[in-house]
């Protein structure tokens, strides 16, 4: 019963958050949807959301680490992989009790916490929510879009535009590689050993483990009935049941309840306490156990080293894509998403979960490479290759669960200056070709770029950086290649743009046709 309930809840929450990430059409939005990300532990900690943190603490103190089996999408992903491995395995899959890797766990948590306070991004690499977000954004989302495009093609064939095609691309090769590696590594561990990641690397799992030791409800073994048959242990993907000793390490138990139904003698209960005298308290494995060699861990570390070795190659590949030439400009500073406040705020809050990147309807946000420096790798930055920032859109600021992008109203957004326009008249087509263009001004919502009379009835761009908000419309559309004649220079600290002068509407009476 408990297991079925857990499966139902986890499938529901997992599907919802996954769909939230891959939903390019914006079918899922609003505060209720945002809650899916905000209820994750790391974002809750980053926003210092007392209500959310208290809620999760109470949940864990009451029921144990059920968070790991239902709320955490990475946890459910591993369960799905483990379930699949069981379905395809030739032999019946059996888990075995493993000693707690306390030293590894605690040191991972300590490292994560230490970095967390300064650069959440680095700990964001192992934060299960952010890591899963990157997988969803980089791998599941493009796959979903390709499926959609195939469907759209079929429907179009029959004259229906019910589905529309969408541009599928990889915004950042580096981020894609990180996501793929994470997916493969965590997936491999889950395939072979169940919840190894959660009980070795995951800082959230370790933190919750401290609490779940003291939780009121726990799975307990009635030692007086137990004959150590081991059937529960074989089902335990967290490897926390020691059937010989009749103990369960509740700091590692993820509350999946898979063991509950299989005991033929009904010795397992999920209850506040066993009747006195029968209590078999769970004991932690000795710290020395951390030294025990574990195949999975060794492989994990090897793969980690391999990944680290491969990263520079991936980085180099990306760098090669940037243009070179005489009139090239290099942005002095990357452009922060509107509402990010400052590079500093971004560095201190963003775990690069890629939710903003996934949700940006204009495809203007992309994971940075080294624009913010090494510490800000994969954090969102504005890139005007695929689009520009919509004047009225505040979606990234609404979805960010970590306050790396602070919520903006439409009116605030209209004045949020994240960069300013720079015009290179030397290569603008109007003077060089003596033709009309005006593409930049056309896309400028504040008319920080206007077209003023030039000669022969032509108009030429003229810029006013004070009222520019750095949306990138001009840079996106500028037809000059290989280097654009107009571009946005980013600001390290966002400021308030001067509001453009609003003219009064004049009533103009026109009562003849004019011809």
């Amino acid at each position: 019963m408990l297991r079925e309930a857990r499966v139902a809840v986890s499938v529901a929450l997992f599907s919802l958050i996954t769909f939230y990430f891959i939903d390019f059409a914006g079918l899922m939005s609003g505060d209720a949807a945002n809650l899916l990300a905000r209820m994750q532990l790391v974002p809750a900690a980053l926003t210092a959301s007392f209500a959310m943190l208290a809620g999760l603490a109470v949940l864990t103190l009451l029921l144990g680490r059920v968070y790991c089996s239902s709320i955490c999408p990475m946890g459910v992903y591993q369960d799905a992989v483990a379930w699949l491995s069981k379905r395809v395995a030739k032999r019946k899959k059996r888990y075995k009790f493993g000693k707690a890797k306390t030293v590894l766990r605690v040191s991972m948590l300590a490292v994560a916490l230490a970095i967390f306070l300064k650069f959440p991004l680095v700990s964001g690499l192992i934060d299960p929510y952010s890591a899963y977000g990157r997988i969803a954004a980089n791998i599941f989302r493009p796959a979903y879009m390709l499926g959609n495009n195939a469907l759209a093609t079929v429907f179009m064939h029959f004259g229906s535009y019910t589905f529309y095609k969408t541009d599928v691309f990889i915004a950042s090769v580096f981020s894609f590689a990180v996501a793929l590696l994470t997916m493969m590594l965590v997936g491999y561990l889950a395939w072979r050993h169940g919840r190894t990641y959660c009980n070795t690397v995951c800082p959230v799992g370790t933190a919750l483990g401290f609490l779940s030791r003291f939780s009121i409800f726990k799975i307990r073994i009635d030692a007086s009935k137990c004959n150590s048959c081991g059937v529960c242990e074989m089902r335990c993907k967290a490897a926390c049941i020691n059937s010989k000793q009749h103990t369960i390490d509740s700091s590692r138990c993820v509350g999946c309840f898979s063991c509950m139904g299989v005991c033929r003698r009904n010795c397992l209960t999920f209850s506040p306490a066993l009747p006195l005298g029968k209590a078999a308290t769970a004991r932690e494995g000795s710290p020395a156990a951390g030294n025990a060699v574990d195949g999975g861990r060794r492989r994990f570390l090897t793969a980690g080293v391999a990944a680290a070795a491969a990263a520079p190659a991936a980085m180099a590949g990306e760098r090669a894509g940037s243009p070179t030439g005489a009139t090239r400009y290099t942005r002095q500073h990357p452009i922060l998403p509107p509402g990010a406040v400052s590079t500093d705020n971004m560095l201190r809050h963003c775990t690069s979960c890629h939710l903003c990147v996934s949700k940006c309807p204009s495809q203007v946000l992309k994971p940075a490479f080294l624009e913010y420096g090494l510490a800000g790798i994969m954090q969102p930055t504005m890139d005007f290759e695929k689009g520009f920032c919509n004047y009225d859109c505040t979606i990234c600021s609404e979805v960010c669960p970590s306050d790396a992008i602070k919520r903006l109203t439409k009116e605030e957004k209209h004045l949020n200056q994240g960069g300013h326009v720079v015009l290179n008249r030397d290569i603008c087509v109007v003077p060089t070709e003596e033709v009309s263009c005006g593409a930049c001004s056309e896309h400028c919502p504040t008319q920080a770029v206007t077209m003023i009379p030039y000669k022969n009835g032509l108009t030429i761009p003229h810029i006013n950086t004070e009222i520019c908000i750095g949306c990138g419309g001009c840079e996106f559309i500028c037809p000059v290649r290989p280097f654009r004649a107009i571009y946005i220079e980013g600001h390290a600290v966002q400021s308030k743009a001067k509001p453009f002068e609003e003219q009064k509407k004049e009533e103009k009476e026109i009562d003849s046709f004019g011809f």
Partner: protein
Amino acid sequence: MDRKQFLRTLALAGAAITVKSKGGMDLMAQSQGKKPVDLVAVMGGEPEEMFRQAIEELGGISKFIKKGWKVTVKPNIGWDKAPELAGNTNPKLVAEIVRQCFQAGAKEVTVFDHTCDDWIKCYRNSGIEAAIKAAGGKMAPANEESYYRKVQLPLGKKLTSTKVHEAILDCDAWINVPVLKHHGGANLSISMKNYMGIIWDRRIFHRTDMQQCIADVCTMEKKPVLNVVDAYRTMKTNGPQGRTTADVVDTKGLFISKDIVAVDTAAAKFFGQIRDMPLENVGHLAKGQMLGLGTMELDKLNIKRIKLG
């Protein structure tokens, strides 16, 4: 082909003027039926009523749309702007055209534009998507290159081929429904400029000589059966996007013709009453006339002017 037609119109118009100057007009009208109207200009009233009156003068929509046809209506939906800001064609007008197409027996009516802002927002916030769906038409996406197919433009001077949306290529007839507005680059955006929403790559226009490219793309063999210029609200400054309603004048105008150069010339002259806009500055008009797309000489056309209460 169209040029031939155009020349014939010219000759007829010329003849008509000659006849008129001799006072024989009434007699002619009686003996040969009414001389066809080349262009209708309407002022005052609401968009639906304005179009109804105008199309009536041209002999009704069924002169242009036949039973069982697949029709495409191409408004300007370029910007994520509400109708009051006049960045897009008036949704009431577009819906009325769609309804009339269905009344004429059209099998289906498709509406689309290759937008500048995010297309979903443009379709929604322009009010056009809702109005079209209510009228029974369908909105086609135009956000992705695979919706476009390459078309040769043998008459083009600088633009000799371009990718055009399948909704234009695969329909039996299309109606061009631009909004009249100021444009920072082209100076004015009307019917000819509205072609930039049926093609995929616009940057090449901006790069190559936009005024010539606009005229060139209009030489595409498949011409609109009708150009309907919405000037119910006119963006006079900061076009084509505009910032606030201060950029907008409530002009309540509508211009409709098969001749794309003529209808744009008429609309440009109308615009010239709001602010100075020499026709030479709207270079694509003269370039269009040179390519035989129509005439800027309005005096030679039979223009019907209607003022509604």
